[in-house]
């Protein structure tokens, strides 16, 4: 973390200086850090940074000044270097020097102000860094990807999309003039074995130009050659990721050319991808790449001439706009549909959507960005609170420095000069704060990367800040610095010199007091908004955990298998699953075993449409179609989930490939299609097949908890065979013991298979609450920080005001006021402000919570308990913040108090 941060700081230096000394500076930093660390507490590291950062910042500024000066001096052609420019530059330098001196002179003030800014800017920078890492910055390991576009085939209204068939991809690639080239890829489950037991890896099957188009250079060996992309099944070659090369191949540089097996077939390892490169949608960890032409061997259930299964992206030709490309590709697609007479499902996918190729597919990116914008908004509130806090600190200091300013004015300094000087100080503070914020963000993102994501796919979160984040942090800090530093600067440099010099006492204008009170109330209100937001998310989480999914989550374990990745053909796959069922059923404590193609509540759904002849009118469209969601389940599935069958029967082992096609539907579907009852025994058409309804299952949650219950169909997996299935097991015993028993069972069947990853349904379903969990965590932390800052602000204000009333309080006590009267006097002022903050905060929170509605399940955005509890908590903290200074004021000796100025 320390070195990451230093590397970012280095980026601020002028390029020439950085190139010459960057590496050396890094080495020196490493050595000195090591010295600061040896055998001592982390405090020393902090102190080390505290000394280093100001010196670095000064060096950065001075180096840039040198660069600018050199430019000015060394540009003889054109007009001579203007004197005023040079003079300005020099006075800027002296401003800077003075600012550094002032900040050094008041280390406590500087430290606190920088810390407060760092917290605020760190909050915003952390969220931005996560956004940047996942969807904004170019894919790691790639070069020159600015003109790459993700190509998606969508329906005319863009609401639905499909992937590309190989044939479609080939034709698009041949005919396009607006794109330089198009590449295709798809995911594939692979079992990669060096020797002995295999490793289950997530792989990509890619067209030959994939790496070249992404501008990826191999770390070792080479990528696919053009002839490896032409003829099917001729080139059994594989490229692995850098991580896989390190962990599974022991970083062996002789690994290139080695014979390995992929899904049981002999392959040659030809290359290692560069570190960091993880394929196109980067949160998923891709560990191996194989040529598309090997599909018949590795994905036997697909076909090169098959329907859609590929994702495509391309590079815009020079001078072509995205819109031109979109129009051309749409025209090519329309022509393709006409030529082939193609009709995919019920809809024509005749429109093209192009989007920037970043870490997430377009749809997911939009959802993610919306979510992150909410969090960014929350973080911005913290920055605002922090800035207001610093503004009040600056204001207070402006009062203290009025005499200094007055003297300077009297000595002939212009007001503009003074304002510029004060602003330079403020900007310096905020720049330091921005670097502190980078530190906060570096730490916070490192912590966020550790948040476990419950999914069977290997997800990599790499959220660390980069130069873009650094410039963002600087820009936002300088903007807030300007915004919040200007008014104190103007205030401090007001011109009533003689008055200032004459009376010498600190200003006490009512306008100023009003201003500082308004600032405090604003901070309090904003922190209440954050607290209410955090409270609402907590309530939603609570509510979400109480939502009845309709089945029993506890006690179920699940394992994903893909026999295709084991190199099995369909028959051998069936044998495997049969043997697995048998041996797992024999494990002690196991109550029920089944298979399903997708787990419930894992944010994955599969939709289709069926045709129904005898449905009630209005339930189906004009052609008799209705869309449903579906799952393929094996015998025993309803027992594993303990999902009751309301009428008819469940799917059993006798519903096999030879018997008539059957399905179980849910109550909602039965009610929608046949409200008069008697759903069992009715028929519908699914594709070419006629399917009979044999049972009605109780409604449940399928995709996510907040969903509106869809029409749902369970088909028999024996009648719709798939090689990839989840084994689901209900067991009364210990989940860990079951996991190792399942591992043993798999090893007994085939010792070369990769180790299965056994998860509980409790783990896999927790992903459906992940957004709420993250939001509650982030807003909770931000709310606490916001409240802390606002409280400290309130405390400071009350303490200051009590201090100024020392004399008044002394008189009151001398005249017989009791201690409790004095306490009440001071606390009352604080409570007034807090009360006002609560009222404004509640109104603002009510407005802001509307934005959260979609994430809150059944919790109302106006959830009264949340507002009440948070307001009370808030009042209690405010009470404490005003009580402490009040106690001090009340315990002052009246004799001393009366002597106060």
């Amino acid at each position, binding site marked *: 973390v320390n070195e990451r941060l230093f590397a970012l700081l280095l980026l601020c230096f002028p390029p020439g200086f950085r190139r010459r000394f960057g590496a050396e500076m890094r080495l020196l*930093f490493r050595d*000195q850090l090591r010295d600061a660390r040896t055998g001592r507490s982390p405090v020393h590291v902090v102190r080390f940074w505290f000394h*280093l950062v100001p010196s670095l910042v000064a060096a950065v500024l001075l180096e840039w000044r040198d660069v600018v000066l050199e430019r000015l001096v060394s540009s003889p052609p054109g007009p001579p270097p203007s004197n005023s420019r040079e003079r300005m530059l020099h006075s800027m330098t002296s401003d800077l020097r003075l600012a550094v001196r002032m900040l050094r002179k008041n280390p406590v003030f500087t430290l606190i102000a920088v810390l407060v800014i760092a917290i605020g800017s760190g909050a915003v920078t952390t969220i931005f860094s996560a956004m940047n890492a996942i969807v904004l910055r170019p894919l790691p390991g790639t070069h020159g990807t600015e003109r790459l576009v993700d190509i998606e085939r969508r329906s005319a209204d863009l609401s639905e999309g499909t992937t590309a068939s190989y044939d479609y991809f080939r034709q698009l690639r041949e005919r396009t003039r607006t794109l330089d080239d198009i590449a295709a890829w798809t995911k594939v489950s692979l079992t990669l074995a060096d020797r002995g037991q295999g490793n289950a890896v997530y792989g990509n099957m890619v067209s030959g130009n994939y790496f070249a188009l992404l501008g990826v250079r191999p770390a070792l060996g080479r990528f696919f050659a053009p002839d490896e992309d032409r003829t099917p099944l001729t080139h059994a070659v594989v490229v692995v990721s850098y991580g896989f090369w390190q962990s599974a191949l022991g970083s062996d540089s002789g690994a290139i050319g080695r014979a390995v097996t992929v899904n049981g077939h002999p392959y040659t390892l030809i290359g290692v991808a560069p570190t960091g490169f993880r394929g196109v949608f980067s949160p998923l960890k891709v560990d191996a790449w194989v040529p598309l032409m090997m599909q018949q061997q590795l994905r036997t259930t697909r076909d090169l001439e098959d329907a859609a299964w590929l994702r495509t992206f391309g590079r815009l030709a020079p001078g072509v706009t995205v819109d031109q490309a979109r129009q051309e590709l749409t025209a090519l697609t329309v022509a393709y549909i006409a030529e082939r007479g193609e009709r995919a499902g019920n809809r024509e996918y005749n429109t093209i959507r192009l989007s920037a190729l970043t870490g997430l597919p377009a749809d997911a990116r939009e959802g993610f960005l919306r979510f992150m914008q909410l969090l960014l908004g929350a973080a911005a509130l913290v920055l605002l609170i922090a800035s207001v806090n610093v503004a009040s600190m600056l204001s207070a200091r402006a009062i203290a420095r009025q005499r200094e300013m007055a003297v300077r004015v009297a000595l002939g300094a212009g007001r503009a000069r003074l304002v510029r000087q004060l602003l330079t100080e403020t900007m310096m503070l905020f720049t330091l704060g921005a670097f502190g914020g980078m530190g906060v963000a570096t730490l916070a993102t490192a912590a966020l990367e550790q948040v476990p994501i419950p999914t069977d796919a290997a997800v990599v979160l790499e959220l660390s800040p980069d130069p873009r984040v650094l410039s963002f942090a600087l820009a936002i800090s300088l903007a807030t610095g300007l915004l919040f530093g200007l008014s104190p600067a103007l205030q401090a440099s007001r011109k009533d010199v003689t008055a200032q010099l004459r009376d010498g006492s600190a200003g006490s204008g009512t306008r100023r007091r009003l201003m500082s009170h308004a600032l405090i109330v604003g901070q309090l209100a904003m922190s209440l908004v954050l607290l209410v937001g955090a409270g609402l998310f907590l309530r939603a989480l609570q509510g979400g955990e109480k939502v009845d999914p309709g089945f029993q989550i506890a006690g179920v374990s699940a394992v994903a298998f893909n026999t295709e990745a084991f190199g099995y053909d369909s028959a051998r796959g069936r044998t495997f699953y049969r043997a697995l069922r048998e041996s797992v059923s024999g494990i002690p404590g196991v109550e029920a075993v089944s298979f399903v193609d997708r787990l419930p509540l894992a944010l994955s759904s599969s939709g289709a449409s069926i045709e129904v002849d005898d449905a009630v009118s209005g339930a189906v469209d004009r052609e008799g179609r209705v869309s449903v969601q579906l799952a393929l389940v094996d015998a025993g599935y309803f027992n594993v989930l303990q999902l009751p069958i309301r009428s008819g029967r469940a799917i059993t082992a006798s519903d096999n490939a030879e018997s008539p096609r059957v399905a179980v539907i849910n109550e909602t579907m039965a009610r929608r299609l046949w409200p008069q009852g008697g759903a069992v025994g009715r028929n519908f058409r699914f594709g070419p097949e006629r399917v009979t309804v044999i049972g009605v299952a109780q409604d449940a949650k399928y995709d996510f908890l907040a969903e509106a219950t869809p029409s749902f169909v369970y088909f028999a997996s024996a009648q719709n065979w798939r090689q990839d299935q989840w084994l689901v097991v209900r067991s009364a015993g210990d989940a860990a013991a079951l996991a190792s028993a399942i591992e043993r069972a798999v090893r007994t069947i085939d010792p070369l298979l990769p180790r299965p990853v056994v998860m509980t349904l409790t783990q896999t379903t927790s992903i459906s609450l992940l957004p709420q969990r993250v939001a509650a965590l982030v807003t909770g932390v931000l709310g606490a920080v916001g409240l802390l800052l606002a409280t400290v602000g309130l405390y400071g204000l009350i303490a200051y005001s009590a201090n100024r009333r020392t004399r008044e309080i002394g008189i009151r006590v001398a005249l017989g006021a009791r201690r409790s009267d004095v306490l009440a006097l001071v606390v009352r002022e604080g409570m007034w402000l807090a009360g006002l903050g609560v009222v404004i905060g509640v109104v603002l929170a009510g407005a802001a919570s509307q934005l959260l509605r979609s994430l809150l399940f059944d919790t109302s955005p106006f959830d009264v308990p949340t507002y009440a509890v948070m307001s009370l908590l808030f009042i209690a903290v405010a009470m404490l913040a005003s009580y402490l200074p009040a106690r001090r004021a009340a315990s002052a000796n009246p004799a001393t108090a009366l002597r106060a100025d």
Partner: protein
Amino acid sequence: MPLDPRAFLPLKPVDLQLLLALGEQELHGYGLVQAIAERTDGLVSLDPGNLYRVIKRLLADGLVAESTTRAAPELGEERRRYYRITPLGGRVAGQEVRRLQALVNLPSVRALAARYAP
């Protein structure tokens, strides 16, 4: 080109310390920082920010140069750059030291130092 060493006087204290340290032996950045800290009892403490600005200036003035010898590659130090003092740098440092000696030996300066001795 024989430059007049006196054109560089007076030297900044940091520059002098750096030249004196390099006058004894060739050093890399970290070695320099340590040598100077030792020599000044920690009074002059350098960090990556200020050290390389000084080195840049001294390189530009021709008072120090990058050393061509690379020490101890087997220690994994091949990436470190070593610096050495140039003949001009040596003359400048010498002049500066003589100037300081002369200053220190002035009777009035001695009297002043004695008067405010701790």
